């Protein structure tokens, strides 16, 4: 679905991405992992066109995204920190997005019901708790039944019940053939959800491939230990 080649980005002196090559497979859940400052969020913003590469290219279904914006109609994005226009209510926000993306296809409002958000959506977003905002954020990402969902720390701030609801939603939408890019600091969660893993360290991809392959290569029983091993010792030959 997405091919990234030799992607580079620097902010001032800081080289955030130092030549990323990565393929996101169709219909799979790809976990992007790495320590803080490894470039995960920057990479995601570049796929969305919010930040622009210094060099390199990103292709979405074979088409370069540079200069294009129509491809974003096929993406649902859940940012790490839910920052909304403060004066709007949740319902107004969703209304605005519906108006803007205005597609005839049926909307996916399943999460509103599951999170029991109806009452909360009438209140101004600034009055909502962090967790509730995160739920609104998730609703907005799934609303248009996009082909690709980019979820940056989706379960951060959610209680266990809501977190489970969201994870079930991710898995059921994957079963319908949607593609996901996920980041999280909770390795057990990523292991539960992901097919592929891309491990970023200091702006480079240290490993990209199926989760099972990473566990095989490192001879570790789970993703957390496998990643820890790559971080401390690099990939075993």
């Amino acid at each position, binding site marked *: 679905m997405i091919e990234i080649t030799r992607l580079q980005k620097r*902010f001032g002196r800081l080289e955030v991405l130092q030549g990323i090559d990565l393929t996101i497979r169709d219909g799979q859940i790809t976990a992007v992992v790495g320590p803080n400052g490894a470039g995960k969020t920057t990479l995601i*913003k570049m796929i*969305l*066109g*919010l*930040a*622009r590469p210094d060099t390199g290219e990103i292709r979405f279904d074979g088409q370069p995204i540079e200069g294009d*914006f*129509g*491809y*974003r*109609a096929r*993406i649902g*994005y859940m*940012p790490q920190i839910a*920052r*909304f*226009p*403060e*004066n709007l209510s949740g319902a107004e926000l969703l209304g*605005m*997005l519906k*108006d*803007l*993306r205005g597609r005839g296809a049926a909307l996916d409002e399943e999460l509103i019901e599951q999170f029991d958000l109806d009452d909360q959506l009438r209140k101004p977003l600034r009055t909502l708790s962090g967790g509730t905002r995160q739920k609104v954020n998730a609703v907005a990402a799934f609303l248009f039944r996009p082909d690709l969902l980019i979820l940056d720390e989706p379960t951060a701030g959610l209680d266990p019940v809501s977190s489970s609801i969201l994870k079930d939603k991710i898995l059921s939408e994957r079963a319908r053939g949607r593609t996901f890019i996920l980041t999280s600091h909770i390795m057990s969660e990523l292991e539960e959800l992901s097919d592929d893993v891309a491990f970023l360290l200091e702006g480079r991809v240290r490993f990209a491939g199926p989760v099972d392959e990473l566990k095989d290569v490192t001879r570790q029983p789970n993703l957390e230990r496998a990643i820890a091993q790559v971080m401390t010792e690099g990939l075993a030959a």
Partner: protein
Amino acid sequence: MSTTAKIMKYELHDVVRSRWLIGYTLFFLLLADALLRFSDTGVKALLSLLNVVLFVVPLVSIVFGTMYLYNAREFTELLLAQPVSRRQMFAGLYLGLVLPLVAAFLVGMGLPFVYLGMDETVRYATLFALLGTGAALTAVFLAVSLLIAVRTEDKVKGLGLAIALWLLTAVVYDGLVLLLATTFADYPLEQPLLGLMLLNPVDLARVLLLLRFDISALMGYTGAVFQQFFGGSTGTLVAVAVLTLWLLVPLYLGLRRFRRKDF
């Protein structure tokens, strides 16, 4: 509806709710009302209004614009993650500011003239020139505020820059021109002064308006030269062209930067 029009619509909803905008409308409404009631003649009221317009419209436009655009960062980021192009977003942001501010100015300024009427000293053309110039200054200073907000990441720095620019164009510039004129009083200064007037949108607006009041005789020989230049159709065309440049250049530079910006 086009994407730009939609973005403009959301922003309009937000701006119209702002207390600033209501205060801005009321300010001009009360001012125009009071001046019309208490001035001897309509033309005197208009002349006083002119001075306030040249001072207040640039200030409010550039400060309101800069502040609003910094506060709209979340809104911008949210929309740019949707199928919206940078160009559409930029146009929407700008139009969503220009329309309500111009409307607030026109309503506040114009309404008292409608319900109080004007005496025979005022020509409609003069009133419309004042309203048109105020609207043009709003558009110009909002374009500049957009350029500032796009180029400067830091809100405080951006706001400082906006106020500094206002001080320069609306206050300091005049003093500098005056200083120049008195220092080189022995030389023929009409042409250089004309050039200097063209460089600053506020001064340009002032000269254009003053010439409509038939008081250019008070400005001596320089006034006569200005009258000759701006009174003719060439001069008016040049003035309008320069004001248009003041609008288009900041917008062009702002858009160029906006398209490359990282969010």
